[in-house]
């Protein structure tokens, strides 16, 4: 139920990521024991994603069920060379949760009570399952953006909301919000691809 910040050593990070990759690949071979292990290692991260975007525990649990069912069916298509295992899994969770949110017409404007706060800055210690070499470039590039651009992009990512909802939340015209985000994304692209 609580935040579980992780600050392990670099070596452990790499090992954890390699293990998770292997477990995900074995899940793709329909290995039930590997699938169970995958669930044990990743359910808190994926449920955290579903809970924040859905805003309700019951709905988030239903979405999480769909997420792991999808993972079971599609793990065979996972290509370790193209994405880290946690990014692949978390992207599925985020997209499923957003689908649920849009389908249910959720327009939550108040903060979600149950979901823990997200740290405002880059993680001081890299998180267990994300590769060290890639963990900081986006954070660094986000830090170079104007406040409005950075906050809007972060909110869009963590809340799974559209331009219309973003604009509504901070009471700016839709065009202004689009301008912030588009200019922010364009600058991010330059920074990331530099």
């Amino acid at each position: 139920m609580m935040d579980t910040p992780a600050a392990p050593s670099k070596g452990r990070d790499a090992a954890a990521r390699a293990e998770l990759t292997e477990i995900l690949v074995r899940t793709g071979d329909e290995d039930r024991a590997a699938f169970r292990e995958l669930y044990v290692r990743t359910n808190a991260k994926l449920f955290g994603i579903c809970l924040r975007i859905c805003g309700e525990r019951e709905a988030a649990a239903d979405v999480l069920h769909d997420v792991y069912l999808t993972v079971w069916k599609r793990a065979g298509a996972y290509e370790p060379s193209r994405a880290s295992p946690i990014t692949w899994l978390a992207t599925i969770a985020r997209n499923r949760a957003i689908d649920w949110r849009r389908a249910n017409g959720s327009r939550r404007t108040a903060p979600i009570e149950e979901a823990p706060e997200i740290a405002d800055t880059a993680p001081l210690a890299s998180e267990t399952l994300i590769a060290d070499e890639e963990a900081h470039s986006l954070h660094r590039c986000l830090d170079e953006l104007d406040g409005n651009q950075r906050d809007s992009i972060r909110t869009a990512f963590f809340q799974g909301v559209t331009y219309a909802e973003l604009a509504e939340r901070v009471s700016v015209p839709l065009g202004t919000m689009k301008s912030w985000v588009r200019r922010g994304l364009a600058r991010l692209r330059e920074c990331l691809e530099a």
Partner: protein
Amino acid sequence: MTDIRTTDDLPDVSAAELALGVLDGDERAVALRRVLAEPGFAQSVEAWRGYLGQLFAVWPEVAAPEGVFERVERSIDAPHAVAAPSRPFWPAVAGLTSLAAAGLLVFVVARPPQAPLPVPAPVVVPAQPLLVASIAPTAKGAAIAAVYDPARGVLRVTAADTPAAGRSTELWVIGADKTPHSLGLLTPGGATSVTPALVARRQLAPGATLAVTIEPSGGSPTGLPTGTIVLKGDLSQV
């Protein structure tokens, strides 16, 4: 079609916008069509998913409620139970007389399911009308037929051409929300019976389009179509 850059000079970052999830309505539909039509655009969306994925590192963890994994396991094991119909299905379709059903039957009869048809026992008329679609090739190949029973939430599809090795054929619905939702993978070389996710089932209505794309083995890794459409057809009531 409206130029999504409109009158201002904002840069075109629609791949990033799609990955971020800020688009809705027509803008999202336009971007999703570009994913299907432009391989470079699809790659760009995937690259952005990777960049943004770095933010998952700071996403707080919350332990999942008890029992979710057990539900997932039951769902994995359930298709066998779901696949055994409590009443004959294709004969129920055959009992219908509308033109749409007649057109569909050409496909059903010409492309029978692998398993022998069950003996036509009492035909139960469903409470909600069935939806059917003839899904025709956009270039070459054979058409397939789909029948959706809203009362049971089950979608049946006749046997499709087997995809190339290492590829899967995935069925999508594009309905009122104008965005593709996966209905599942087609069984290679045989008929398919699936219970699509609720989000996708909501889009299954008369007028909705069913489309088949060729995807990496196991289906689109992104949850959105990444391959070109090979078969397409609209749902109608019978």
